[in-house]
């Protein structure tokens, strides 16, 4: 009896260690994510993540920085973003099948590479936490004032983590539905507020020279730059060489959306009002009134925005978990998703005592940090790759 048990135990041990060594052998060639997305999904994923974050953050902040020229700054941000995207796409092609976590290890070696590589996932976790926090606050102040804020935030994170755990394919298919819906509803909204718009509120452009425009452009890039996440998508995309095209389409539609939002916000409310608004997009939706039969549609806008934002949050959680899983060599990223969500939730709950600190963070600290990671770090990796002559193996 006893011998039997020992025998079985030994057998189990052997089997487990065998699996383990098999896993170690596979490490490096095997992705913890097995899903594959096509380039259309790639574009909608990027569109959702850029637009939902920008929609809730950019307009008010940008108008405060660039005044009436804000919508032009969005175009400037688009241009810079295209340049940066070319860099991401090039890196994705130079290191085929690798995302930035992996190629930072390839370029800088095992230890330094891990230290640099961990910055990207952490950045996504931070972005996810601040973004979902901002969204929950909007729901809280505009729709559910008596509901505890924590309840909204926790439910957001629960859904996001659930989606993230299902893998990139699920998020991709969701964005394929939500992306067009988001875009079309936005354009419909802009058309419907035209009667409330006064073009003279946008005049004159460049009244204070080009300085406000130049001040606004990096701010736009800081949020558009979240598309650095495309480096996580390239290895799971079925046609990585089309990454740049997909990205170009995504950022162009995104720019159209955010640019129109900024322009219409300024045209309807004027500079002074927009820059003091928590969410100009929501306020625009509240301005819609066609006679007495089509009004109070802001809840539709909010439903779509919340949907898109939860998916965006899910993608960021996925990127964090996948990155960390690759850094430490796990076979699956899935066990990390809920802990990651908990981490982000705690960060969102405890790091800002109030809305003042949060706006300070999103207006000053986050853009700097984002630009550092999105442009600075990626440039650094490119230079290092060129200097050391490193290339991916495929």
């Amino acid at each position: 009896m006893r011998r039997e048990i020992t025998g079985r135990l030994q057998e189990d041990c052997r089997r487990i260690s065998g699996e383990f060594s098999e896993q170690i052998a596979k490490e490096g060639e095997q992705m913890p994510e097995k899903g594959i997305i096509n380039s259309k999904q790639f574009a909608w994923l990027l569109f959702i993540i850029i637009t939902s974050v920008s929609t809730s953050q950019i307009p008010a902040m940008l108008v405060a920085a660039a005044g009436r020229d804000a919508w032009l700054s969005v175009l400037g941000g688009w241009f810079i973003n295209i340049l940066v995207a070319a860099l991401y796409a090039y890196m994705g092609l130079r290191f085929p099948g690798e995302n930035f976590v992996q190629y930072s290890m390839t370029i800088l070696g095992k230890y330094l590479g891990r230290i640099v590589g961990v910055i990207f996932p952490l950045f996504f976790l931070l972005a996810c936490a601040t973004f979902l926090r901002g969204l929950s606050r909007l729901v809280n102040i505009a729709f559910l004032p008596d509901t505890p804020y924590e309840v909204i935030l926790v439910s957001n994170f629960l859904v996001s983590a659930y989606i993230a755990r299902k893998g990139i394919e699920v998020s991709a298919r969701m964005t394929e539905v939500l992306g067009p819906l988001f875009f079309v509803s936005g354009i419909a909204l802009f058309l419907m507020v035209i009667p409330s718009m006064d073009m003279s509120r946008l005049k004159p452009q460049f009244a204070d020279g080009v300085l406000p425009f130049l001040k606004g452009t990096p701010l736009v890039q800081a949020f558009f730059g979240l598309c650095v996440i495309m480096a996580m998508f390239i290895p799971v995309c079925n046609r990585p060489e089309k990454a740049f095209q997909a990205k170009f389409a995504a950022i162009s539609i995104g720019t159209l959306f955010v640019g129109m939002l900024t322009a219409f916000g300024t045209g309807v409310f004027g500079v002074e009002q927009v820059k003091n608004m928590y969410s100009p997009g929501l306020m625009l939706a509240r301005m819609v009134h066609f006679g007495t039969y089509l009004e109070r549609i802001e809840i539709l806008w909010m439903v779509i925005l919340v949907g898109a934002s939860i998916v965006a949050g899910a993608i960021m959680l996925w990127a964090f978990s996948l990155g960390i899983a690759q850094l430490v060599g796990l076979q699956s990223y899935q066990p990390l998703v809920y802990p990651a969500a908990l981490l982000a939730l705690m960060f969102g709950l405890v790091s800002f005592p109030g809305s003042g600190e949060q706006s300070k963070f999103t207006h000053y600290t986050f853009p700097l940090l984002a630009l550092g990671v999105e442009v600075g770090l990626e440039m650094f990796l490119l230079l290092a790759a060129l200097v050391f002559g490193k290339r991916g193996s495929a």
Partner: protein
Amino acid sequence: MRRAIAFGLVLLMTLLLTSGCWDYRETDQLAIVYALGLDRIPGSDPILLTVQVVTPAAGTSMGASAGAGAESKAFTTISGTGKSVFDAISRLGRKLPRRLYFAHTKIIIFGRTLAEAGLGDVMDALNRNPEIRRTTLMFATDGSANQILAKSTPLERLPAKGLEMIAEKAKRNAFVPEVNLNALNCRFDGVPGVAFLPLVQLVKDPGSPSGSGAGENLTISRTAIFAKQHLVGILTRDESKGLMWLINRPQGQNVTLDGAGGAGVSALRILAGQTNIVPQVSENGISMEITCSARANVRETETVGLDLNDPASLKKLEHEAEQVITKQVETTITDAETGLDADFVGFGRQLRAEYPAEWKQVETSWKDIFPSVRFEVVCHIEIVNTGVMNNPSRPGAGKE
């Protein structure tokens, strides 16, 4: 089996959610505010808030309660005081069994006392309230908002609804502008910081419709002018019409020609019109060129001896109308420049849009420069049709 138990547990858990969220609001617990009035009164609680609340039962039991006691009013007017708007709302809430609900507020009226003391104290409360929409119509009154809201209107069960419809008509016939909360904010934030609001008045009317109380009726025909959020003056009817041209909303306006050439009264209606204000900056100062152009039709004519089939006589009418409109617009601008000393006509805004560099130089001293801005009004009216008939069907008309 395990799956079934787990499923049952999940089902039980969902029961917890059926109680609703924290923010549930049952309609039978709400007092729906249709109109809101604000006055300033002397004392330690300077804000007098008046709300017109829809009486819920009055709407439903209309037919059934014929003869069951006194006729129930469709609205209730309640007022309360407070140190601020929010304070007044919460104090008023203590007197009411139901929660005051502002999401359906259509009208906000500022009483004269508040308007003269300045709207600055109350604008923030209105803008910050998540229930109040920026599409809410704004009005001023030369009396107290409290009185206006207590007044019932003929034909309409809900006086605020009646007021809303009067305002809609005022906009359609272009005699006073329609201003919502957003537009008011924009005017105050804009270049000269000058705004205008339609003025609601209680007027004694000899031929008042029956059932409207003491022969007083609500009317909107004039415009109140605010500078730096204070009431500075009230435009006459003609000046209000001139203002409609200056803010580029003349569609629907009636132009009454009182027959200066000895002929009878005629009336034209503006079908579509446009006003362009073009600023010009030269060595001898700033001047504005105002071009009003419109198409109109004939609504009424008593003119004897005018053949409306003849283009030449239409030209005569057109010319007469042009003179009337030019005079209206000129009077409005003159009043703005010399009388009220407030740039509600939008000259500063136009100057900033077209000449940003020059505007920067005059921005700080605009108040002193504005009265000296020269202007020229040019008007082009084209009569496109004469309505359903050509000449007045009076015997002998057109032959003399």
